């Protein structure tokens, strides 16, 4: 084969890798929060809003779901300055990722809301609760509990998708990999280490979400 693997060079650059990893985690966390809030709002608009809001929500979801994340990031990256918003690359990446996640999250949450039987709503209305009270006490929490698995799967997909932000020079884990690669020419070793890092992260996230489920969602 005539090739020796030189993982040592990769591990020598561990500072760069770790700082990239830290940004990946930060991007993931902030995007999950922002994307969830956005998704909740859009889902509520899609179910309860006036017709123009329902149409806007539907259009937003369809546009995001039928275009690649890479192109969305480019549009946000070049689009924000053109309307006068000058931001650093990390906030730009977060915004682009959150807009993307928000669309998928809203579809999942909307399915959850619509899965609550009408009889539950009727009983609450018959007791005198307002629409908002019904949503807050009877619909929201059961709906989120129902879709928790789908939602957290989507969050893990998001974590993996943060790698695409490397293409707008966000210095997350994948970007760190390409920097190390250009410096050491250990292309294959670098990306093997990066791939394993993502795999471990994905498994860790899955464990964390499963734990949260047991603590928060299952009551007995």
């Amino acid at each position, binding site marked *: 084969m005539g090739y020796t693997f030189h993982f040592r060079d990769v591990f020598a650059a561990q500072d760069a890798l770790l700082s990239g990893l830290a940004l990946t985690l930060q991007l993931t966390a902030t995007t999950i929060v922002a994307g969830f809030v956005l998704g909740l709002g859009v889902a509520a608009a899609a179910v309860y809003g006036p017709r123009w809001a329902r149409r806007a929500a539907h259009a937003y979801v369809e546009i995001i779901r039928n275009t690649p994340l890479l192109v969305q990031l480019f549009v946000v990256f070049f689009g924000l300055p053109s309307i006068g918003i000058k931001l650093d690359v990390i906030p730009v990446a977060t915004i682009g990722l959150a807009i993307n996640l928000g669309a998928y999250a809203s579809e999942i949450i909307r399915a959850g809301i619509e899965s609550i039987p009408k009889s*539950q709503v*009727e*009983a609450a209305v018959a007791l*005198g*609760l307002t629409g908002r009270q019904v949503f807050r006490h*009877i619909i929201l*929490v059961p709906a989120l509990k129902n879709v928790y698995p789908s939602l957290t799967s989507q969050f893990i997909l998001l974590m993996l998708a943060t790698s695409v932000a490397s293409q707008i020079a966000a210095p997350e884990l994948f970007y760190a990999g390409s920097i190390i690669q250009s410096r050491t020419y250990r292309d294959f070793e670098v990306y093997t280490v990066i791939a394993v890092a993502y795999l471990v992260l994905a498994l860790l996230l899955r464990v964390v979400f499963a734990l949260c489920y047991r603590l928060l969602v299952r*009551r007995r």
Partner: protein
Amino acid sequence: MALVELRSVVKRFGDHVVLNNVDLSVQKGEIIAIIGRSGSGKSTLLRCINGLEPVQSGEVLVDGVAVHDPKADLRKLRARVGFVFQSFNLFPHLTVERNITLAPTIVKGLERDKAAVLAREALKRVGLEEKLHAYADQLSGGQQQRVAIARSLAMSPTIMLFDEITSALDPELVGEVLRVLENMAREGMTMLLVTHEMNFARRVANRVLFMNQGTIWEQGPAAEFFQSPKTDELRNFLGSVLN
């Protein structure tokens, strides 16, 4: 003044007329049983009284509130009109206690500890105090229905509406629910029940209504109603259900 007053009420689902010029007057303390075939409009009649179904024409006046007015604020009324459903509709993610205290705390603004006392008393009235911290799926059908009744009672309603509340129960669980209803009747609650339990209706109700083709076909005091039906349709109906 009648507690519930329906005048020339017409209700349509699309082209289908479900309530065809219904007039009804209910006095305070009356216990009225409503019987009839499925599709005769009896559940719809009940649901129009607390505004779960809108009416196309006519007037529905409940405790002074014009329910038929689209601009009416029905929330305040619904706090005074209790409604118990055939499928109980307990909130599965809340404990029994929270099911019962939800409306008093949110709609009436009662403090949590006062509401908790209310919940315990309501559960006592239906004989289920020990189930305060249980969840709906831990209870039998009969117990769930009694909790549903307690949930409505906790709002101190002036009138209670029951929509076939024993129809979804296994036969051996029906008795415990009917006993609760009998106690409430004895305490003087105004009650309207859509029911198939003819013996219960005969024993407990003051007045019985027979719904047919969207109108009140025949009505009368309970004893006379069951003993000497005046119309053929009622006679046929009683003949088929009482065997």
